[in-house]
């Protein structure tokens, strides 16, 4: 199963959920955790797996051979991103604007353009026992997150259970990461911000056509509105994690919840089984469909 973990709002506990789910599950199955939050990949701060493999991600950008170029201007005409400009005696490429679409090199009548790779980030891998982590990292100052997310997803190993940690928000990188998942877990917190962003995230999963469920983090204060929203929109609440100083302190130290408070292991395993049943995988537990409440 491919399970993606997203949240409209950042800092709601996506990393907490992804890492703990992966750790709990890895005691039973092979698990691959893909950290697709390539702007801020944080999963390995908790897992601390040794990185054993690292590969640059490139996007192809044009390079003009000026001995062949006759400055006809075709390349700049076809580039919708204004990433290539033709002057009377010079062709200028602006790598930071180029999306690597390949139109200019294909359409250059003089075959004067070749493509060369420009590194925009890296993909790293590490593993321990049953758990493998693949993480993408965007270079500081770069803007093209989707190619890195695509590169991370190329490593998907269909024989494992896959957990994808998605970047916050609702735009292109989120869609790129969530697409192709069997289920998307949305992590939220019971504040007006959390609810606003949750409703956006629910819309995104609807748009992509991936079923979703909700985990409420820092619960226990005021989740009435969030619960009402979920009821009205027919989105199941699958787990609640209470607002608790001990949990917050463990998190701040980078200690996974399932290690610092092992009683949580069952809750995460139960969450996974519940989702597996929902997407029609594995056995359907008795009386499933009701959310799990843990205090």
């Amino acid at each position: 199963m491919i399970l993606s973990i997203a949240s409209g709002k950042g800092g709601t506990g996506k990393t907490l959920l992804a890492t703990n789910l992966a750790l709990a599950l890895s005691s039973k199955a092979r698990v691959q955790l893909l950290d697709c939050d390539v702007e801020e990949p944080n999963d390995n701060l908790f897992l601390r797996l040794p990185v054993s493999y690292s590969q640059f991600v490139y996007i192809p950008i044009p390079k003009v051979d000026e001995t062949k170029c006759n400055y006809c201007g075709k390349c700049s005409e076809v580039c919708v991103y204004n990433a290539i400009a033709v002057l009377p005696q010079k062709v200028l490429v602006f790598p930071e604007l180029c999306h690597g679409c390949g139109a200019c090199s294909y359409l250059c009548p003089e075959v004067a353009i070749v493509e060369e790779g420009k590194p925009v980030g890296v993909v790293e891998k590490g593993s321990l026992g049953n758990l493998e982590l693949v993480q993408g990292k965007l270079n500081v100052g770069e803007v093209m997150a989707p190619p890195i997310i695509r590169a991370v997803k190329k490593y998907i190993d269909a024989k494992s259970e896959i957990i994808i940690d998605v970047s916050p928000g609702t735009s292109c990188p989120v869609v790129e990461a969530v697409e192709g998942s069997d289920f998307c877990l949305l992590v939220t917190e019971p504040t007006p911000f959390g609810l606003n962003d949750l409703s956006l995230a629910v819309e995104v999963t609807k748009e992509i056509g991936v079923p979703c469920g909700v985990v409420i983090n820092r619960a226990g204060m005021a989740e009435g509105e969030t619960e009402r929203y979920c009821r009205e929109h027919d989105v199941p609440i699958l787990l609640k994690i209470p607002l608790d100083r001990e949990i917050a302190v463990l998190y701040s130290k980078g200690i996974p919840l399932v290690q610092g408070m092992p009683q949580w292991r069952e809750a995460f395993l139960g969450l996974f089984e519940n989702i597996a049943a929902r997407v029609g995988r594995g056995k359907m537990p008795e009386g499933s469909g009701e959310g799990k409440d843990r205090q």
Partner: protein
Amino acid sequence: MKELVVLSGKGGTGKTSVVASFAALAENIVLVDCDVDAADLHLVLSPRIEKENEFWSGEVAYIDGEECNECGLCQKLCRFDAIKDFKVDPIACEGCGFCAQICPVGAVDMCQNMAGHWFVSYTKYGTLVHARLGIAQENSGKLVSVVRQQAKLIAEKENAEHILSDGPPGIGCPVISSLSGADVALVVTEPTLSGIHDLERVLGVCHHFGIPSAVCINKYDLNEENSRRIQDYCSSHGIEVAGRIPFDEVVIKALVQRLPVVEYSPGCSVAREIEKVWQFVAR
């Protein structure tokens, strides 16, 4: 006029709460919400929308099934795997126009894409420019540029002293758009390992673009050892720590009431520290 951008790298550090309080403390400001992906500032500032505008950006390819002879060339060449079975997936399409250029029978049209809305609103703290990017849309960086540009025009007209901008999370394209040419960046962080990690990355972006930055540690007493690490990191990089806000439920309570902390509980320790930070960055 001075433009201040509040960033966080990692989401959920309390950035928007800090901005809302700044809004209440400042006089004569224009506010911008540059987090166009998940705009939240309006939830605390209760704006009245005065002007709503469409944001058109980019194009999406569309294949006319009548004209297409299914030669498959576009599918082969599209670098973004956006064409399957001679149909364009508008979510995957990057609008590069390559397919329209090469289709031998001219079956591909590029259509304008309405990517969201932006608003100019009245709030009791000052004019707010905010936006809402359409679901699954790209170009959030461009929309950020649009709202910032509008805010600048309004600030000039109103002769405002400050533009206060609630920045997007992360370090990518929208952050860079919200930062370029700003006068100062304040990074709100928290003393968690991920907070520190992301703080370093976002300060790297500020440095890369030559924007002077300062740091505010939120919930500093959650892990004082990490807070010290942040302070050490900042002092060794010549970055000022403008304030340390304690962990207090009053922040969430204020949020639930949809009020800035400095108004919900003026004089509490959180409010006093935020005031201190505001004095520092407004200088």
